[in-house]
């Protein structure tokens, strides 16, 4: 098997809460890998820790109030990012690993032209002259499908639509040809027809440039259509991870199962969809007070005594190679309990 490009081990990122009253364990022992050239989907609802995970990889967590706990480990191309000096880290950030955010309006600087903003990374990381960097910016705008790139390069963000701005963000992120692109909800703020354009663009660029993509999203539909493997997060932990086909065919964690059943679907006949949707009772607990035992047990239809007392480790689902499909759920040790409920 090929070596992973990125290896995250037991990542713990905690925040001291505003009133100093407690510690929010936003990311609490997360492990996963990203392999070269693949798309990994990181899925979960608000507050599950998916964004904090991605910000931790680039060490963009504001300290204080946040801190990455000792014992956490993030290895990229053979180096532990958590022990790098700031200068070494800067050589990786925006160069080898790039990131795009949900809100292109707030992540672009309103007082610089989009050309200047795209060129900046090329000047800083690759030592290009201003003139060459500008030519590169035009090239990048063309690559991401912006019409009239030679003219658009001098435009300011406010002169562009939401979809165009997200294309500019992508151009900025890709100007140094990163090996890993972290895309945090890149299409959530966009309309569905524009979302389709951006997803298609990301897919094409990934193939052309041979980079790996870590796609963070709450949308199972987006994941199903783009990711090779999926990591599902709940309450600061990875509760299930598997190849995309396997996960959708055989979701084993009750949270994954519930999430998939809650999504209203467009690909079913109307006669099948009318009536009640499946819903997961209750709500996501607070990061300052995760439930004891399995963190999903208060909302889980299968929970029994053991779930309330003992936190399950990631268990192997026995599909393919060891570790190919892991699930943090005691049901894997007592599968008859699932069939008894169903």
């Amino acid at each position, binding site marked *: 098997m090929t070596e992973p490009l990125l290896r995250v081990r037991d990542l713990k990122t905690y925040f001291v809460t505003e009133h100093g009253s407690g510690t929010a364990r936003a990311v609490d022992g997360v492990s996963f890998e990203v392999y070269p050239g693949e798309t990994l989907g990181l899925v979960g*609802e608000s507050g599950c820790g998916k964004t904090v995970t991605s910000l931790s990889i680039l060490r963009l967590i504001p300290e204080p109030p946040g801190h990455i706990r000792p014992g956490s480990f993030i290895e990229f191309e053979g180096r532990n990012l958590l022990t790098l000096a700031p200068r070494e880290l800067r050589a990786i950030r925006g160069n080898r690993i790039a990131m795009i955010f949900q809100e292109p309006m707030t992540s672009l600087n309103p007082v610089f032209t989009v050309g200047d903003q795209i060129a900046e990374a090329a000047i800083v990381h690759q030592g290009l002259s201003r003139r060459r960097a500008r030519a590169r910016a035009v090239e990048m705008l063309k690559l991401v499908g912006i019409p009239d790139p030679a003219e658009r390069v001098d435009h300011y963000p406010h002169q562009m639509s939401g979809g165009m701005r997200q294309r500019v963000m992508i151009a900025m992120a890709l100007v140094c040809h990163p090996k890993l692109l972290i895309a945090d909800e890149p299409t959530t703020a966009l309309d569905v027809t524009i979302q389709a354009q951006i997803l298609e663009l990301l897919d094409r660029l990934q193939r052309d440039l041979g980079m790996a993509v870590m796609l963070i999203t709450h949308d199972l539909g987006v994941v199903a259509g783009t990711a090779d493997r999926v990591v599902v997060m709940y309450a600061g932990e990875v509760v299930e991870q598997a190849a995309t086909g396997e996960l959708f065919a055989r979701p084993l964690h009750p949270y994954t199962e519930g999430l998939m059943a809650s999504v209203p679907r467009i690909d079913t006949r109307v006669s099948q969809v009318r009536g009640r*949707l499946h819903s997961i009772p209750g709500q996501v607990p607070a990061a300052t007070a995760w439930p004891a035992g399995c963190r999903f047990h208060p909302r889980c239809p299968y929970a029994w005594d053991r779930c309330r007392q003992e936190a399950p480790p990631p268990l192997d689902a026995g599909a393919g190679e060891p570790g190919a499909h892991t699930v943090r759920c005691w049901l894997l040790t007592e599968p008859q309990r699932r069939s008894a409920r169903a």
Partner: protein
Amino acid sequence: MTAPAPAPAPALVDVAELVKHFPAERGFFGLGRARGAVRAVDGVSFAIQAGRTLGLVGESGCGKSTVGRTILRLIEPDAGRVTIDGRDVLALGTRELRALRRRMQIVFQDPYGSLNPRMTVRQTLAEPLAIHRLASGADAERRIAALLEEVGLDPTFARSYPHELSGGQRQRVGIARALSVEPQFLVLDEPVSALDVSVQAQVLNLLADLQQRRRLTFLFIAHDLAVVKHVADDVAVMYLGKLVERAPGAALYAAPRHPYTTALLSAVPVPDPKAQRDRIVLAGEVPSPAAPPPGCPFHPRCPHPKKNERCRTEPPALREVAPGQLAACHFAEEPL
């Protein structure tokens, strides 16, 4: 959310040729004359029968929220006719309008922005009861407790402030507030768009239960076609201020007649990696409603192979192309 009535009842809500134009941007500091107009709503017509749900879908800026607000006269329309339960809404004076407001209410998308942060849930729910002189004192307390229970909240939530509630709980309070005056008709403006998937399902189920129990009529405004498929009896698709298609949900989702509907449906991501779908990726973006294209407003992005000069010059009328199914396309008989 209910089975179709055996005989078509008269429509509870009837909207005809609704128009709302906003003055376009002025020069610096709002000085100077307004140049042109943003045609937010440009001749929209539909009817909703009592107890049924019309889903109004479209992308940002298509005018769908403005339709909801002009119907309730939260925004004054420029032209058109709106009747609710036989009353001409646009002809009413202030006092009559206030009386009619009891019958029609709205639930907003953002439960953070639409609740007063300084008011407890009790105060939020007591206000409409006081304004409409429906209940006070112990009677009001009883009704507030019953309302909270009806939307699935423990009555102890009455003492809470909005910031103490989760997004789903806030949206339940927003729904309880709308229900407090016992309306017949609710405009639901993206009521679940800000919620997480698992909570979204809870709120959609709640709305279905309430509709059945109280025989409510819904105008459900949303951008999410999968959600609308789940809740709506009939669906209207809006593009640049106009309806491009209107049909019973089953027909619209199974056999869309307008190329925009087809493209919109094909763009929705499906949570099934095995689904091999022919996604139509529309080129370009929605033009500005201040300068809509001549002819068919969709023609610059239309992927229909037969698109021709007529599309560029002659606006297509919304016409019946199959029983109950209306589409505004010159080629609606040859759908994509």
